[in-house]
């Protein structure tokens, strides 16, 4: 059934050939763009859009939105790599967006259909992972840092040391179980770039994590905020938005970006290759980048929006929240991850397996 061909077969063509996903693949020839049904299929993170945004969009344009949810970038990537099952708009994070661009999984954007691009903060008008913003528009951005319980720690635990290299809070610390995130934080603690590619760096980080493992309570499956809220741990590595959600419930909790710097991420709006309604997807992107609509979204989900016009409309409480917009000097030490190739990806994953097995 599967033979070696002169040209390597891709998994996508292999599966399409067997017909297993042929039914799910919907190609949108550019000729057909003019006659699109009034629908758009949005594949998004959970609680990551305004409460009424999609209804408002339907009222304004007559296009109805169907939204599915994914839990993390890996799920998004795995779901789309065998062919687009019918999504028009997706929300990959910067390094995954880059990987998808390289793999030909994203459709180039038509900037003439997105006049609200002008609302984007100048800092986000261009991106190192997508020069010229050919494939992606910025949505929200944020940082990875330390969520902690103020009454249970001494001062502000503003260093990765407390999570990576100390027994002071032994058994009260959670790290994310996301290997990329953990390795990025450890790299920062060791004074390295989050975009290390050297085998020696991977080894140094592996040794650090292995040595400190007895002090860690659990590698949290992206539920560090719940562990913090329930008092299971007093310090956790988490994404700022997740901690902000529990700070609203318990004012003994706080968030800090460590002084060594951290990972800064940017979620993007992109159209996957083979989207059945690309025109409508452009319209939805443009709507999200609108000042009013963008303000409603940011106000509801409490993440830092890249939509400057929307930010201007929001209250000081939002604009001056240090857990949403960290101080400039801390941001200066943060880096965003770039896609470093499958080889580095494998090195990190293998090292992570060894850390967990140690």
């Amino acid at each position, binding site marked *: *059934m599967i033979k070696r061909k002169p040209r390597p077969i891709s998994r996508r063509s292999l599966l399409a050939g067997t017909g297993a996903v042929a039914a799910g693949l919907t190609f949108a020839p550019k000729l057909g763009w003019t006659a699109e049904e009034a629908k758009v299929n949005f594949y998004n993170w959970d609680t990551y859009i305004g409460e009424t945004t999609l209804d408002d969009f339907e009222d304004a344009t007559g296009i109805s939105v169907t939204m599915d949810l994914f839990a993390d970038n890996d799920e998004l990537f795995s779901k789309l790599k065998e062919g687009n099952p019918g999504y028009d708009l997706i929300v990959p994070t910067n390094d995954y967006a880059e990987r998808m661009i390289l793999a030909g999984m994203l459709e180039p954007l038509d900037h003439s259909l997105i006049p609200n691009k002008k609302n984007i903060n100048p800092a986000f008008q261009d991106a190192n992972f997508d020069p010229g913003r050919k494939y992606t528009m910025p949505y929200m951005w944020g940082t990875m840092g330390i969520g902690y319980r103020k009454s249970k720690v001494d001062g502000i635990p503003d260093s990765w040391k407390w999570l990576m290299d100390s027994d002071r809070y032994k058994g009260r610390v959670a790290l994310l179980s996301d290997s990329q995130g953990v390795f990025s934080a450890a790299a920062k603690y060791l004074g390295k770039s989050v975009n290390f590619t050297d085998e020696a760096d991977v080894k140094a980080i592996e040794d650090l994590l292995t040595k400190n493992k007895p002090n860690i*309570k659990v*590698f949290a499956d992206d539920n560090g905020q719940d562990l913090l809220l329930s008092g299971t741990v007093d310090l956790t590595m988490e994404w700022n938005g997740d901690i902000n959600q529990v700070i609203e419930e318990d004012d003994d909790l706080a968030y800090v970006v460590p002084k060594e710097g951290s990972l800064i991420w940017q979620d993007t709006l992109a159209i996957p290759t083979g989207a059945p309604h690309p025109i409508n997807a452009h319209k939805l992107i443009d709507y999200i980048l609108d000042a009013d609509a963008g303000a409603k979204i940011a106000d509801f989900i409490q993440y830092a929006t890249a939509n400057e016009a929307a930010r201007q409309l929001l209250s000081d409480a939002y604009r001056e929240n240090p857990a949403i917009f960290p101080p400039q000097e801390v941001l200066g030490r943060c880096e965003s991850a770039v896609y470093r190739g499958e080889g580095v990806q494998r090195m990190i994953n293998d090292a992570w397996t060894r850390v*967990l097995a140690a």
Partner: protein
Amino acid sequence: MESWRRSPKTFLALGLPPTAWLLLFFLIPIGIVWAFSFGEKVGIVDIDITGTFANYDRAFEAVYLQIMVKSLIMAGLTTLVCIAVGFPVAFLITFAPARWKPWLLLLIILPFWTNLLIRTYAMIAVLRTNNGFLNMGLEAIWDAADAVTGLFGLAALGAFQPWDILYSDAAVLIGMVYVFLPFAVLPLYSTLERLDTNFLEASLDLGAGHLKTFFSIVVPLAGPGIASAVIITFIPALGSFLQPDLLGGTDSQLIANVIERQFLSANDWPFGGALSFLLMYITFIAIAARAFLTRPNERRGSLPA
């Protein structure tokens, strides 16, 4: 079963849909994963099926063997506890009054009405240190004991120290037993149900005690059922990744977690395929062993009374 010769059309009509289903949705996908296990990654999404054994080589590296051994031990312990707990339960249901039986069986099947993920999350609420139901119960008992010792003028027991069991291998084991126990009880019950009680009466009449009767008569006669229960518990236990993920501590990963990562974050399907097929080979060996072990038992079970 010669009926297919008499009415081949009926046979075809009945047999075709399940065969097509198996072929399309089971054998072909599994075949693709099997093919991937002999492949190499040549890009972000491209896999080149080169016939290499490199993935299997890699699976035999010390770290993966260590995880595999740990997974076998955890699955083995789960099976052992499930049989030890499941056997008396199945025995009780078998000898319960007839009108209770459907209800008791319903209780065994009841957990299946709730999603596995939800049930595993529920275990977090039971086992966690702060406000976990287990620790709340233990604390209540502790306080009661403390009050009693106080009553008799004995030294106070001191403050209650909660049992820090969540996020450990023990929690994973508890979670796995909880999930797989029904799988053990049902085949045991179906075997015990068919057990000829005359054997038991004969044994008791001839002077064997209850314990001796249980171990010399019931257990050997239930051999095939025990073997089925072992297999049907052990195999899914070997493949569980949810319990180590949600209930495990920093070193609770099992081989299924490694496989899951190959298909998600590592994006290394060839290696994930190779690891999956190694598990599959272990499964085949276990099933072959079962067939080998149960044959003499079945012969014994069918001895004329």
